[in-house]
């Protein structure tokens, strides 16, 4: 099936999200769509999938113009979509999830589970997607859940499969497996639209690459193009993909964590006997696949959750019992994993968010009264220093782009003297230009002698920043390595192979 997009335009009021997009997806092609957050990739895909009505332009399938009023129409036309956040019901089995919405029944409304299971088995052998139709979705790993989503689309006879940032939640090994599946699908004639902002993946799997910037297709590239070229097309200027840094001037340990255990409200041990130390002037990276205890670990460092056992000290002072306010006062800078949830107050202005944890300081208040002038001067200064793109300091932070929202959080945390900086996913959902900037600031903070702890699920980020890397798996630190370790080895450690030595053995 050949899918053509001709002059597709979507306007919201006077804002043009997609401007005259022309794309052709050939049968059996893996077409990569590369673009920064907010470039208009999602708008385009939502029009393809019948979720949004195009303002102008048309879609053609095998030369015939089509119109999708709803996702149902798009599915009937052979378009399948795997969303970034899976649309699965955890307490249902794989087969039940696949038949959801088009249940087969045996008279009288009894579900025909056997037929559904058979369909799943057939599809999984045809396309080499190993899944057990009778497994509960909540009990299978994320990578397998993604396969279930793909099977769901294939069960609807999808000829064009849209994969929206499919690798964001996967381990390096799972990414390799996904690429294998994509190649297999391609061999069988399914076209794939692969949306991502990771240059490495695009080069590894793409047949053609279209780059979207500010709602326009700015160019089509060959997978042989260099990463730097692709990044330049994406951002519109040349970007540095590596972080310039000198060798660290490592000082004394500042933050010491010993045998910390955290039990979550369900009674599950999510952090198990974790010990590490963060040293002045050094970046410690904590690598790991999402959900292996990193979130709870750093929350316990700030005092948002109380560790159930173990010791946490800063400069030898016990901070285990501290709440967030005391920990912040102790000199911890904290960039939370989910900025919109924990990092800023969306309804507050930029000015207010920039002092969200500083308003009590003498500088910004006297007794009960806020010093508005000081707040404004601070905002003007930070906006300039951190290049926060906002209409004014009175704009609500929720109206800013993701990168600028993150800059607000980063600017605030960097505006007081720090002993330890804890940054979780500091550049998640941030555009390439802002990533560059935030990374530079983090290294500058390290060079001031701050102990930096970076938690990230992006290996690129871990490698770019870290002077030492601790790998977390299943609530434990399974090993601490130096950044010269091979990607495959660290990937194996993230997947649970203990220690760098064993990881090396496993690859041998």
């Amino acid at each position, binding site marked *: 099936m050949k899918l053509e997009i001709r002059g597709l335009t979507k306007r919201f009021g006077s804002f043009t999200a997609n401007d005259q997009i022309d794309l052709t997806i050939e049968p059996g092609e893996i077409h990569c769509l590369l673009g920064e957050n907010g470039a208009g990739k999602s708008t385009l895909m939502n029009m393809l999938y019948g979720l949004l009505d195009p303002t102008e332009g048309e879609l053609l399938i095998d030369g015939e113009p089509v119109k999708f009023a709803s996702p149902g129409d798009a599915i009937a036309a052979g378009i399948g979509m795997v969303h970034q956040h899976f649309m699965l019901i955890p307490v249902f089995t794989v087969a039940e999830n696949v038949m959801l919405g088009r249940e087969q029944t045996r008279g009288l409304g009894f579900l025909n589970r056997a037929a559904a299971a058979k369909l799943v088995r057939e599809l999984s052998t045809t396309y080499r997607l190993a899944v057990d139709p009778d497994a509960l979705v909540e009990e299978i790993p994320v990578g397998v859940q993604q396969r279930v989503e793909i099977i769901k689309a294939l069960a609807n006879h999808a000829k064009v499969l849209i994969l929206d940032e499919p690798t964001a939640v996967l381990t390096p090994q799972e990414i390799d497996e996904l690429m294998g599946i994509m190649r297999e699908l391609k061999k069988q004639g399914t076209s794939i639209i692969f949306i991502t902002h990771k240059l490495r993946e695009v080069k590894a799997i793409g047949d053609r690459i279209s780059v979207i910037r500010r709602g326009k297709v700015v160019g089509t590239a060959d997978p042989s193009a260099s990463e730097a070229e692709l990044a330049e097309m994406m951002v519109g200027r040349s970007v540095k993909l590596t972080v310039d840094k000198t060798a660290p001037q490592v000082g004394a340990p500042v933050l010491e964590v010993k045998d910390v255990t955290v039990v979550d409200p369900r009674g599950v041990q999510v952090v198990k006997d974790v010990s590490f130390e963060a040293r002045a002037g050094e970046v410690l990276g904590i690598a790991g696949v999402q959900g292996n205890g990193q979130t709870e670990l750093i929350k316990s460092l700030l005092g948002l959750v109380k560790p159930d056992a173990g010791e946490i000290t800063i400069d030898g002072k016990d901070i285990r019992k501290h709440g967030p306010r005391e920990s912040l006062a102790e000199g911890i800078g904290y960039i939370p994993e989910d900025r919109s949830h*924990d990092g800023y107050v969306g309804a507050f202005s930029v000015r207010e968010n920039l002092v969200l944890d500083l308003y009590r300081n003498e500088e910004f208040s006297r007794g009960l009264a806020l010093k508005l002038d000081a707040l404004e001067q601070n905002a003007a200064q930070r906006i300039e220093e951190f290049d926060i793109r906002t209409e004014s300091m009175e704009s609500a932070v929720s109206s800013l782009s993701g990168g600028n929202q993150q800059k607000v959080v980063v600017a605030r945390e960097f505006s007081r003297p720090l002993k330890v900086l804890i940054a979780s996913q500091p550049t998640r959902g941030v555009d390439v230009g802002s990533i560059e900037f935030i990374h530079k600031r983090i290294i500058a903070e390290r060079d001031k002698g701050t102990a930096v702890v970076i938690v990230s699920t992006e290996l690129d980020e871990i490698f770019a920043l870290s002077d030492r890397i601790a790998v977390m798996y299943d609530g434990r630190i399974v090993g601490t390595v130096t950044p010269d370790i091979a990607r495959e080895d660290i990937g194996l450690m993230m997947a649970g192979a203990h220690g760098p030595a064993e990881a090396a053995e496993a690859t041998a």
Partner: protein
Amino acid sequence: MSTEPKTQVTPEPEQEQPAPIEKAQPVRRPMAAADWLPTVKTTLAAIVLALLIGAVLIAFSSRDVIESLPYFFSYPWDFFSRAADAIGTSYWALVTGSVGSAHAVGTTLVRSAPLICAGLGVTLAFRAGLFNIGAQGQLILGALAAGYVGFTWDLPPGLHLLVALAAGILGGALWGGIAGVLKARTGAHEVITTIMLNYLAAAVLIYALGKNAFQRPGSDNTQSPPVFDSATFPTIGNLHLGVVVAFLAAGLVWWILNRSTLGFELRAVGANPDASRTAGMNVPAVYTTAMVVAGGLAGLAATMGILGHHDSLSPTMAGSIGFDAITVALLGRATPLGTVLAGLLFGALSVGGVAMQASAASTPKELTEVLQALIVLFVAAPALIQGMLRMKSTDENKTVMAKGWGG
């Protein structure tokens, strides 16, 4: 607050002239008209629509109009002229009765004062993300405390008033604080606890009025003696000083919300408790403080009647002020200025309603309650108004409102 993306282009500074290198001093600009205008427009539209519907109701509640109906098709003019007459008379009475003379304005102000105070309490709690349904209970406790001090203690004038006033505020603050502590300590939803505390307060009132300490001497009714003159607000004409106190309270609430660290915390916690906690704020303490202050404001509302009006404590003394306060706060979009304006409007409607009933059209004064309800209904559904009047849609629901059951 328009949804239209910003299209204005900032004019480039003229390059020719040597730009003065002075650092632009941050200027505190007043809120741009674009920010509040849509809200004002929808609110006014809601009031106008409510008055239109009210006009229909007035017409059909007039006996003259009803009498003209049977021969409507043979002589429709009768119907229209009589309807116009009834509507005109009623609304004219409504206006003159509420703001038509100095006396009427005074009455309106006195009637509005408790609505404003209690409404401020609801507003303040709203901004902290709390849906305070308990103004009624807080008000009753405030009245009990203020009344007891007012008719039992013997203190010099002036001092007596201050002590009674403080007692009223404390009584309300205590009752509000209970809901606050329950929320902070156990996570009990404030909607449930404040509703239950309302029932409890009503029961406490009945119980107290049955005791000798609160009984009017020589009376078997559940009614207390009025407070001593030494504990009442000084009066000027038909106005009393409590009205001034109410407006001062509004100013204070504005200052707390917009200029103080406490208000910063209240608003932050109301908009995003998780980020507030991560930023080191003590969320449970903020919830408790918000409810204590909100209760204090409801207690202040109670003193308007007890200390301003010589009202005595009785089972019906609180009327429905505590519930009207919720409506006032909603109509005022949870801002202090809005609450004051909404309180004045409701006070005027209630005073004018009496005049309307006394007018030639003798429109039932319940109509004003219908008007109040319609206004709030339209304000609560801005999309409805915008649809009816084909106004451009606005983002005005940005005002931080309490989260329903999620919190």
